[in-house]
Each structure stands twice: as C-alpha cells, then as structure tokens.
C-alpha cells in the first residue's frame, strides 16, 4: 500500500516548482502514510493478542499424568469456556448448572488434555444452545449443565445443553476428523475426534452421546480412576 503512495509522492515531487496544489497533495499523502503506520501498529497488536489467546489454549503442561480433582477441572473448564464465549461474542449468555458429586474425588489423568476435552464439549454446547435461541424461540433460555458422579473405580461426567440437538446423519460422523457442521472458518472439525482420542485412547475411558434434535444434547464421559496410568503409550500418535 505504502509503495504505491511513495511512487505517487515522487511523481508529485518531480516538477521543481512546488505550487500550492502540490503542497496540498504532499500534505495529504504524508498524513495518509502516518495513518497507515498507526494501523500497522494497531493491527500488529491485534494479531499479538490472538496469538496469545491461542497459546493459552494449547499451553503444554508437564505432559505427565497425575492425580487431579475432577470436580475442580470441570469447574475450571466451565469458567474458561464461559469467559471465552463472552469475549468472543458480546451478547452471549447462558445459564450454567453444576451438580458435582463430592465423592468424585481424584482421578489419575493428563489435566491439560482433559481440560481441552471439556472446553470443547462445553463450547459446542454453548454453540448449540445459542443457535436454538437465534432460531427465534421466544421464551427459550439457553442452559448448560455439568454433572459428576462417582461410580466407584470410575467417574461419570455429563455435559448437557438444551440446544438444537444432533440429527442422526451428523451423529454418525461427528467423531470423524475434519467433520464439521459449522461454516468455513468457524470449526476445524477436529474438536470431537480429538476429544474421543483423549478420552478413549489416552485415558481408557468412554464417550457417548444422547441427543434429541430440537431438544438437547448430552455427552456422557466415564473415566477410570487409574486409566491414564495404564495406557502409557496411548493417544500420543
């Protein structure tokens, strides 16, 4: 952009006599160039903040599994997803419900990876509930609930939204890599396939979905208390 302007400046400067009109032209172009430099700085800062946010999402922990409080992880994921969605879309809002079983306790897991799964499932839930509201359902109140329950040597976590639900043809394919129903640029199609690998391959758990189009979607995850310890090589490739 600036290259062309400089050429223009040179064109203008060629005649030796700097009459009033030329002077005016020069002033206008210099003003424009200054403005462009400010924009470069401003957009550089914008790019910087986007990269920082991306790094926050991908921050690597020690890469080691360790015993962690599952209720605390679900709670942290809810907060992260909620504030992320609020930051992304000014008018976003949703009712969050929590029902944590105090007996859920500690699970041996990879905390960063499990947080990624919950973030993904919760964000999907937000998206579906918001979509249903945007479809013009007047009295509709978007809501998402997170429930944990101890099953002895396993823990069950349920993430449920009252959104648009998943039609059967999508349900069949939704764990496939690169499958997405979102518009170009909004989804990579990797969220659920990644979540599936983390839960099943890396932690020896299960992930299932119950859904009714136009009513709700519920992801049901079970994690064995010592699954990560047993599948040492899982999920790394």
């Amino acid at each position: 952009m600036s290259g062309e302007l400089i050429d223009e400046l040179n064109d203008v400067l060629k005649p030796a006599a700097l009459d009033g009109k030329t002077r005016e032209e020069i002033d206008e172009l210099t003003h424009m160039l200054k403005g462009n430099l400010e924009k470069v700085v401003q957009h550089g800062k914008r790019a910087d903040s986007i990269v920082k946010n991306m790094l926050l999402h991908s921050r690597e922990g020690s890469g080691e599994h360790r015993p962690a409080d599952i209720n605390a992880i679900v709670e942290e994921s809810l907060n992260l997803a909620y504030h992320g969605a609020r930051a992304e879309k000014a008018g976003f809002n949703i009712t969050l419900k929590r029902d944590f079983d105090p007996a859920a306790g500690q699970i041996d897991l990879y905390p960063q990876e499990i947080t990624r799964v919950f973030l993904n499932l919760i964000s999907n839930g937000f998206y579906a509930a918001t979509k249903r509201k945007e479809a013009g359902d007047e009295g509709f109140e978007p809501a998402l609930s997170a429930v944990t329950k101890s099953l002895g040597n396993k823990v069950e976590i349920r993430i449920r939204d009252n959104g648009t639900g998943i039609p059967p043809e999508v349900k069949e394919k939704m764990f496939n890599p690169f499958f997405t129903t979102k518009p170009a640029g909004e989804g990579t199609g990797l969220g659920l396939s990644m979540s599936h690998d983390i839960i099943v391959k890396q932690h020896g758990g299960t992930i299932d979905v119950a859904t009714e189009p136009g009513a709700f979607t519920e992801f049901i995850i079970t994690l064995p208390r010592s699954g990560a310890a047993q599948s040492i090589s899982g999920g790394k490739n």
Partner: protein
Amino acid sequence: MSVYILVVDDEPDVEALFRQQFRRDLKSGRFTMEFAPSAPAALQRAADVKDPSLILILSDINMPGMSGLEMLPKVRAQRPDVPVIMITAYGDAETRRKAIENGAVGLLTKPIDFALLRHEIDNRLGQAA
C-alpha cells in the same frame, strides 16, 4: 452518469484501505464507493437505490449475524442486475462453489490482489458505459 460500488465488510479499516487503493479513481470521479458494515445494512442500501447506478457489490463472507453467503441469494433476488464478487480469507473449493452456486460472479481471496480487483472493476465500468 455517476456510478458506485458497494463494499460490504465488518472490518472498519477496509474502508480506509479501499479509499487509498482507489484514491485516484475516486478523486477523478470515475466511480464512488459506499461501505456497509453488515449484510443487512448492505441489503437495505441496495433496496434504497433503485436506479442502475449501482454497478458492483464486493462482499466479505465471514461477518457476525448474516454471512455474505447468506446475503448473496437475497441481494441477487432483489437486484438481479448487479453482479456480486465475494472477497474472503477462505478461498477453499467448497466456499468458491457455494459462492458461484448462490449467484456470485467471482471470488477473490484476502489479502486482496488490488490489480486483479481493479481489472474486474474496469470490466464493469466498460459494460456500464
């Protein structure tokens, strides 16, 4: 006859960029440019001006609320005489196919190749003259 081009993009700095790139044309009055920050605003604008002075619409695709691809069939129905070129960061085959299917005459990718865009505009001006 004075003709104008409508540019639809939610990024406000697009206006500054276009005004600089087409500075000489705008100054000499070859055409004027109008800017709409959203798809609904663009539809409104296209409906308000019934005369044939609107010769081209350039529209972004990813915009909050109504996307450029959603706007496309609406604006084509409203103003079948006005060609629409989509300008997007996502130049994949699927997006291109959707744009053409919905009635766009072309798709340019960001960062915008202004030489190419200028060529497209010159073509339109040639037809309008």
